[in-house]
């Protein structure tokens, strides 16, 4: 984008790829193809508009942005829509500032827009931040000549549990329907009827169940689409806005947090062209009432001699915790950091483990994991920043392969980029997965009304066989990933589920070596990537330094001002092994951050370990299964009350400041720092800024990246009896996640929990579409309605934590395990 700059004289040469035109008497050079309305913006001339949106295709529907245009010395006979006309050399443009024709055309359209508008600004959520209201002031008449009858509709119409439609306020700019079609790719909403009766609507049996529906509320230029959760809660001018970062996933989306009198009332998408453009998913937008949910822990608690947790002072709680940990140090302390930490907090956990607990038994992975994963992360991911793989680079890639990653469910911003790349650049997106999910369908180049429904971009694999399938990819996929020899080849995105498939990370590594494709690791949680960088891992110190590398340890010891050789040199244990050790008495105490045992591979074993371990310190926002067993519970601050930063999947640091008063609540890094002081150790992580500063000074490792893993491809499990099937499972975006509590409007847009099998498997197992089926293990069972889906034979799919399907908690099984299925 060229900056706004008046060309000084007409004699300067026009830069390559530009044209020179005159707007309101000012000469300006504009890149070819630029829309007139943007060129005007660069000159500081704001032409009123409704349907125009810089990230949507031009529509020319509202006709508010009419200007007078002269081409080749001849005035065009009609005023032109500046949102659809591109600049041309020698064009002379007169906006409302210099053309009475443009001014009258704009005033005329504004008067027409208002004749059927209810003019109910005083009771409208949009009032005060409404483009219609604002532009009616600048371009409208002071009074209306319309004395006839206005068109009315019943209102509001809930088009989903979280989006309400007021058709009377709608100016039919089509931003919402175009967003759904062009950006989200799931047009649940469409225009219905015609003329003045035209309206936005949904099909009878299909509400607006999009994960991105909240964006339509934000881009609606009037108050036609409002949020059920925010409706009538505030006036925009009473809100205090703070930039923030999405904490629900690893996308790092920029958000705006709007608060009033100490309460977060709503969140909006921030504008970061490099990351989330202007879009966020609905969970990031709507799920924030965990801040005030009943389960919030606000006071420290200590378990008394009577075995009951009781609130106490920070001083007391920290002393008890420090005493217990100091006593346990001899017997060994394990640190489970959890995946929702800021990078500063994760650094504090990493340092606490090494310095206060004297161990490498620290792991952020609150989910199934593997040693192969650690090797992969050390070899491919840690230290890699957006200069290697960013959203922009991802969008530009000719081909992308998603492995063990369901982008729309796990990383919605990644999904939006893929969808954009497919639509705008014809990117080929392949998915190594189990069925043609909505995301697979919408990232197919065959998407569109005119194309057959059959998609060709799913590379199906039985759970457990993914590594073998990856090793023998169809040649057209391999060729696409090579990128045809052009600079900037393909991209392979791998999700955290790969840890559940032996050999899969190794196969990804081998594929990257074979094709030159760039590898991106897209974890589900916001804190995973930062925790990796911060060294909250058993094999790596901060900056990706291997714990077994004496030089790397020495670097860290120097900065931490520790005696040489004081850092433990033996690699630590992963989450599951730490818990096993705790259960076996090999560890005397555990420090547990935001870990939900039901997210782990074996929840029952984890709970046993937490119960058996001698001393358990929990740092948490909300009560959980850990709280019930903890000896000391230390409340930690949610993002709204603190500063910090996440490292998103790109490796990009995403800092944020507190949106609400930060007094009275402490971030993890501060709690750990104080706890360490009580244990006579200094962490120097009193504030997130201090922690970030130290991590920054440590920098990245200097040596070569460790070798990538080379674990042989595993074999999928074979059903031992006809009633068995291989389980495929992953989490859906809107589910029972602990940070999505108390959001009934959001929960109403969750995808239904269904058990999925293909038709042949259903027949063999005696299942009927729509009828209930039961999936069973020795631990328990889940009963859900059946949906016939294009899964491989003998595979059954369940959502990880939706509706009645809490796979880990109820079945104790995971992706690739064998389950019994009956009608």
């Amino acid at each position, binding site marked *: 984008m060229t900056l706004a700059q008046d060309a000084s004289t007409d004699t300067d040469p026009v830069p390559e790829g530009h044209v020179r035109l005159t707007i309101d008497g000012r000469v300006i050079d504009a890149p070819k193809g630029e829309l007139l309305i943007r060129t005007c913006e660069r000159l500081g001339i704001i032409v009123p508009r409704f349907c125009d949106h810089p990230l949507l295709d031009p529509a020319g529907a509202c006709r508010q942005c009419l200007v007078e245009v002269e081409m080749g010395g001849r005035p065009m006979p009609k005023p032109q829509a500046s949102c659809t006309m591109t600049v041309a050399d020698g064009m002379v443009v007169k906006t409302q500032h210099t053309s009475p024709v443009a001014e009258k055309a704009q005033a005329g359209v504004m008067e027409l827009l208002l004749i059927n508008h209810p003019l109910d600004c005083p009771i409208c959520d949009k009032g005060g931040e409404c483009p219609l209201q604002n532009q009616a002031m600048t371009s409208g008449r002071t009074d209306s000549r319309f004395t006839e009858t206005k068109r009315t509709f019943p209102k509001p119409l809930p088009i989903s549990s979280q989006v309400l439609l007021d058709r009377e306020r709608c100016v039919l700019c089509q931003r919402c329907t175009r967003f759904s079609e062009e950006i989200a790719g799931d047009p649940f909403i469409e225009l219905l009827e015609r*003329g003045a009766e035209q309206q936005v609507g949904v099909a009878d049996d299909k509400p607006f169940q999009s994960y991105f529906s909240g964006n339509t509320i934000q881009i609606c230029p009037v108050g036609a689409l409002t949020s059920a959760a925010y409706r009538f809660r505030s006036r925009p001018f009473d809100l205090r806005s703070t930039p923030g970062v999405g904490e629900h996933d690893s996308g790092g989306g920029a958000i705006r947090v709007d608060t009033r009198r100490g309460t977060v009332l709503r969140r909006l998408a921030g504008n970061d062209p490099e990351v989330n453009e202007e879009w966020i998913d609905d969970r990031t937008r709507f799920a924030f009432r965990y801040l005030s949910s009943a389960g919030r822990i606000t006071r420290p608690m200590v378990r008394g001699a009577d075995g009951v947790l009781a609130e106490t002072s920070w001083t007391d709680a920290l002393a008890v915790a420090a005493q217990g940990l100091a006593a346990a140090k001899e017997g060994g302390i394990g640190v489970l950091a959890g995946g929702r930490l800021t990078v500063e907090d994760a650094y504090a956990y990493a340092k606490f483990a090494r310095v206060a607990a004297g161990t490498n038994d620290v792991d952020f992975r609150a989910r199934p994991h593997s040693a192969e994963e650690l090797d992969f992360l050390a070899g491919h991911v840690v230290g890699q920043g957006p200069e290697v793989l960013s959203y922009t680079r991802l969008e530009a890639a000719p081909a992308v392969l998603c492995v063990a990653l369901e982008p729309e469910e796990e990383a919605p911003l990644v999904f939006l980029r893929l969808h954009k790349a497919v639509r705008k650049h014809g990117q080929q997106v392949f998915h190594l997965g189990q069925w043609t999910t909505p995301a697979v369908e919408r990232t197919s180049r065959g998407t569109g009304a005119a194309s057959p429904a059959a998609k060709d971009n799913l590379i199906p694999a039985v759970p457990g066989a993914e590594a073998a399938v990856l090793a023998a990819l169809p040649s057209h996929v391999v060729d696409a990933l090579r990128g045809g020899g052009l600079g900037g080849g393909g991209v392979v995105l791998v999700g955290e589920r790969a840890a559940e498939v032996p050999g899969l990370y190794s196969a990804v590594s081998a594929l990257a070596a074979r094709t030159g494709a760039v590898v991106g690791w897209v974890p589900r949680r916001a804190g995973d990537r930062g925790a990796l960088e911060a060294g909250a891992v058993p094999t790596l110190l901060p900056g990706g330094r291997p714990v077994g590398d004496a030089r790397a340890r020495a670097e860290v010891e120097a900065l931490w001002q520790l005696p040489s050789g004081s850092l433990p040199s033996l690699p630590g244990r992963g989450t599951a092994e730490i818990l096993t050790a705790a259960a076996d008495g090999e560890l005397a105490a555990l420090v547990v951050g935001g870990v939900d045992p039901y997210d782990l591979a074996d929840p029952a074993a984890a709970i046993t370990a937490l119960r058996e371990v001698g001393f358990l310190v929990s740092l948490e926002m909300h009560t959980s299964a850990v709280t019930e067993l903890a000896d000391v519970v230390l409340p930690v601050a949610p993002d709204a009350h603190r500063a910090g930063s996440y490292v998103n999947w790109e490796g990009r640091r995403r800092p944020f400041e507190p949106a609400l008063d930060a007094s009275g609540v402490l971030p993890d890094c501060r709690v750990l720092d104080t706890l360490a002081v009580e244990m006579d150790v200094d962490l120097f992580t009193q504030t997130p800024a201090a922690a970030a500063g130290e991590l920054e000074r440590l920098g990245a490792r200097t040596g070569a990246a460790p070798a990538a893993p080379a674990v042989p491809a595993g074999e999928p499990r074979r059903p031992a009896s006809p009633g068995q099937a291989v389980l495929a499972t992953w989490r859906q975006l809107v589910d029972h996640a602990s940070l999505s509590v108390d959001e009934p409007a959001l929960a109403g847009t969750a995808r239904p929990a269904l058990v999925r099998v293909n038709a042949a498997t259903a027949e063999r197992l005696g299942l009927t579409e729509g009828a209930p089926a039961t999936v069973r293990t020795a631990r328990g069972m889940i009963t859900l309605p059946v949906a016939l889906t294009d899964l491989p034979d003998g595979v059954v799919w369940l959502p990880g934590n939706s509706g009645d399907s809490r796979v880990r908690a109820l079945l104790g099984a995971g992706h690739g395990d064998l389950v019994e299925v009956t009608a």
Partner: protein
Amino acid sequence: MTDMLTPVLTRRWQSPRSWSIDTYEQLEGYQALRTALTAHPDQLIQLVKDSGLRGRGGAGFPTGMKWGFIPQGPDGPGAKPKYLVINADEGEPGTCKDIPTMMADPHSLIEGCIITSFAIRANFCAIYIRGEALHPIRRVRHAVDEAYAKGYLGKDILGSGFDLDIVVHAGAGAYICGEETALLDSLEGRRGQPRLKPPFPATSGLYASPTVVNNVETIASVPAIVQGGSEWFRSMGTEKSPGPKIYSVSGHVERPGQYEAPLGITLRQLLELAGGMKGGIPLKFWTPGGSSTPLFTAEHLDVPLDFEGAAAAGSMLGTTAVQVFNETVSVPWAVMKWTEFYKHESCGKCTPCREGTYWLVQILERMVAGEGTPSDVETMLDICDNILGRSFCALGDGATSPITSAIKYFRQEFLDLCAAQPVAAPEPAGAMA
């Protein structure tokens, strides 16, 4: 008197079972196709250019030039499939030429489609017929079946190696789908609303491929041009508007009907053909080409009805739907009925047409009910000014024509309706209500 008629498109209409392929073949049908298939496609485009044939759907765009815009060649845009789409969504009030053409002589349209497809190198042609016109849909479908059975359609037509399939598509009853890009969206199964131009259909039409969209009457003229040659075609009509044209005379005349005459005929001559004004009641006003063309009065009896003549007199040739109204008809009432049509048919995409027609109808209905004021006339003119040239497609412009032209010629009639009303303007209901 009948020597004013030039039956070219209508010449078979009175033959027994004129719509059957047997009758058509007996009356030189499909001879032009045989000639055309021996020519080079570019020669056919040149022939139509030379003939001066202009689009009969209302805008009068030179047909040969339109065909020439279709990119050809093995690479780039020319490599895409090309399509011919026939606009048979005849819906303009008063217009009734395409439906009788398809009823009486569907094979002339089909033969024209084949020749045109051959010329623009299309292997697929869609005929988009207005959904309410059920009988013509059945008739054209049957005629297409007949043409397939005789080898005029399908693979290797008449041994030429040229393949063509024709699909007859029934619209769903929307006036807007007569706008060519809305028609294309509708044909693709989408909501019928006009597309942003550019890109134009010639480069990105049906399924984003090069597409010619032509009116029924235009394409039905093509076989005659191939048979008769461009000189013969130019022997009729005027220099800039050559050829014959079907004038659909309706309203208060003795013999309403289709009169095929050279372009440039006047209403005075058409009235002679139609037996004069019904019952001798004098002419009051008339439309030269449907309700979207500004209306004329008795002073325009001698305006030559070709593209240039109608425009010079302040109207448009349109679809040559000549609606004749005698002195018994109230102009505001007629304008109100037309405006009700436009309000009903506005697609809703753009603000001026959607909201403007909604407003205008209410003012007109109020005036006709005797509750108007003189300021309403000025308001209507201003609303029309805010619609004309501000709307997305030409439908909005067309909606203003009857009102502005009616006020131009019959302002007093509108004012007379306000006689019962006090002079003061109506009180606004609120500051911005």
